[in-house]
């Protein structure tokens, strides 16, 4: 267990390091210059040069990467040259909004997806199954931004039930502001999860141990709950764990459309501005979270399945 944990931890660390190094590499071949983007046209060449030095962009690439990780060891993500604020402040100010958004989306979509998938599997081959299949697969395909847009137009603009923008203040208000964005992001995952759960349910339903449970006259409801579902949701959990990366991407769109604060919007705007310290800081944190989410999903699977626990 300890061995597994350290191994896993070191591996995650390595993944993050490789990912960030790849990113730095990529950023450096991408054209664009932060000084131009942020300082505006009136900046003098000397000032631009000063900014580049302040960002460490004059250093050779490997040095930059090493310095970056060296600083991280001291818990320092660097400073934004333009606002003079600590990158960690900037990132961690935005992060909670995205995390809450993603968590809410995962929560509602997995609950609904599992229920829908179960229902489909139990009624496999009927028209209801077909219908729920068309519905769930149909929702997979609608891009998050189209979903978000229609959600705003209908529920905020036309009906005026829910706020159109922002993140709100205070628990209740924030929850209300979360509804539409979480809906827009989650809806396609309902479909994914439903299809996944349906497929694995069907597989587990044909397993010998389920037949054995039936041979003892256990009620169907109990068999589904205690015997099938716990195994059948495992692929969906894994999917969600690896899907957090995609959720972060979807959050980008939704944060723009709902003018929500969040790390997705932060990344996009800092990429546009070529604000390297913020990009690196933000991507580092997101990557770490994504790696963590994968780890978490593995742990949940292990919790659900003692055989996986053995591997720990």
């Amino acid at each position, binding site marked *: 267990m300890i061995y597994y944990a350290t191994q896993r931890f070191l591996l995650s660390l390595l993944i993050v390091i490789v990912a960030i190094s790849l990113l730095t590499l990529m950023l450096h071949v*991408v*054209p*664009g*210059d932060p000084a*131009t*983007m*942020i*300082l*505006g*046209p*009136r*900046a*003098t*060449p*000397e*000032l*631009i040069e000063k900014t580049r030095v302040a960002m460490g962009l004059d250093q050779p690439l490997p040095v930059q990467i090493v310095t970056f990780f060296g600083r991280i060891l001291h818990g320092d993500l660097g400073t934004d040259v*333009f*606002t*003079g*604020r600590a990158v960690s402040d*900037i990132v961690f*100010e*935005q992060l909670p909004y995205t995390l809450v958004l993603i968590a809410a989306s995962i929560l509602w979509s997995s609950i609904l997806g599992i229920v829908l998938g179960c229902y489909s599997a139990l009624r496999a081959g009927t028209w209801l199954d077909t219908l729920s299949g068309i519905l769930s697969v149909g929702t997979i395909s609608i891009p998050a931004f189209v979903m978000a847009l229609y959600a*705003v*137009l209908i529920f*905020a*603009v*036309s*009906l*005026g*039930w*829910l*706020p*159109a*923008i*922002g*993140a*709100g*203040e*205070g628990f209740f*208000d924030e929850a*209300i*502001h979360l509804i539409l964005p979480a809906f827009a992001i989650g809806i396609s995952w309902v479909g994914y999860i439903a299809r996944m759960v349906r497929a694995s349910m069907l597989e587990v339903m044909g397993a010998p141990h389920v037949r054995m449970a039936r041979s003892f006259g256990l009620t169907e409801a109990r068999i589904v709950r205690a015997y099938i579902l716990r195994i059948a949701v495992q692929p969906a959990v894994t999917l969600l764990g690896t899907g957090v990366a995609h959720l972060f991407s979807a959050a980008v769109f939704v944060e*723009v*459309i*709902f*003018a*929500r*604060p*969040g790390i997705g*919007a*932060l990344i996009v*705007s800092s*990429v*546009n*501005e*070529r604000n390297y310290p913020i990009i690196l800081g933000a991507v580092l944190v997101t990557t770490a979270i994504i790696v963590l989410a994968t780890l978490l999903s593995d742990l949940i699977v292990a919790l659900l399945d003692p055989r996986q626990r053995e591997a720990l």
Partner: protein
Amino acid sequence: ATMPLGSRIWAQSGQVLRLSAYADIDALDPAFYQNGYNVDVMNCIYTKLIRYKAGREWDWELESAEEIEQVDDTHIRFKLKQGLQFSGDYGEITAEDVKFSFERAISHDSPVKSDWGPLDHVEVTGRYEGVIVLKEPFQPLWTIALPYGTGHIISKKAVLDATDDGGNFGMTPPVFSGAYVLAEWKPNQYVRLTRNPAWTGPAPGFEEIRILPMDDTKTAERAYEAGDLDFTQITLSSLAQYRQDPPANTTIKEYPSLYYVWLGMNLDNPALGDKNLRQAIQYAINVKQVVDAAYFGEAEPATGLIAPGLPGHRDHSAIPVEGDLDKARAFLQAAGGPPSQPLTIDTLNASEWTTMAQIIQAQLSRIGLPTQINVQDSGSFWTLGMESEGDRWKNMQLVLNRFSMLPDPYYATSWFVSDQVGIWNWERFSSPEFDKLHQKALSETDSGERAAIYRQMQDIMEQSGAYRFLTHEGSPVMYHDSLEPALRPDGRPLLPRFSGSV
């Protein structure tokens, strides 16, 4: 529409003005501000000697100055009102503070020190009096420095307390001198401004102002319709729809904007070396059609760089707005037919730009000139013609460009002088005469004469064949009927002077 819950909660706290900004603030030090959206906030939290007049004409009026006058070409004398207070314990605003505020930009090498042009120093002649001394004449001081960003006055003591050297204090103003103070800034969420208790001027119209950043104006439109905003800019593409079917209790107003949009041609690209070809392109473009398509008929074709309402605006351009296909074909003939490879049009990745590019593409194909559109994200686009960014400038051919403006023609022409080649002058247009005229206009005090020089400069640009001016866009806004906004002639809000109720 009924008010969503979130806005109802806000509304209870009294008179709160809510409006959008197209970006979140990233600088609150007036000497180091970088972009216009910061100035909207600075307007509220700092004072300045003079300010823009609200209305349709570009003009200024006194704010914290009791009087101000141009003594001669290089000297401006001012006298502050008495009894103006800084927030906190920083006491009265004095000429010493004015001197400190104005000279900082120069002494700390601010990115916007060029706003002050040839400012030499400020001479303090009394507790409330002083003289701004220039090294050489500089007319734009009146239009882009004193009433705008760098003209804001802060407390010398406060800044020195907050910083070691009086340099950039970034996002945390040590002192306020305006009608509002910065109560709260939640990055990417809102800026909350509340009344400044130390403010001695006329009480501002609202208890509180909330500025919500949203990159996309369409988002702001929806937020307005959903009842989350009281005032917002709108896009030209939505304008017709809103005029036809406005949201309830809403006023819609259109203002010209100062932006200028043009199609530039890289003179140093071998494919565009032949002036005939460039002229063929100039004449093949029907500006009216391009602008109509991209802005849904809501923007006017431009005649040059300088927007209507500013000195130097041309009544019409040399090349007819609709273009002239026959002439275009003739020029193309003279150029020896279209180049072997399709020309590229570089453009930003927003809808208006790609639309314009596609219409231009279609128009050029009518004279048999094939083109290819390269869409770029803002980061890549804005360094396209810069020599500091490698060799990309060499491959750039046609580029659809837009610069923003301050209300002085000098600001527009300054990017096209020879010194700017490879920096912002991407067409690599270089004319000694143009450069000379630019310099001359800076010190020209006679406004008629000055306007004539700028008109002549635009003629030179057009004749080079490197430019086809397209539009100045437009800046429509919408707001609640009960609101009385104070707006610059280009539709930008002057927030402390908003009044009415929401």
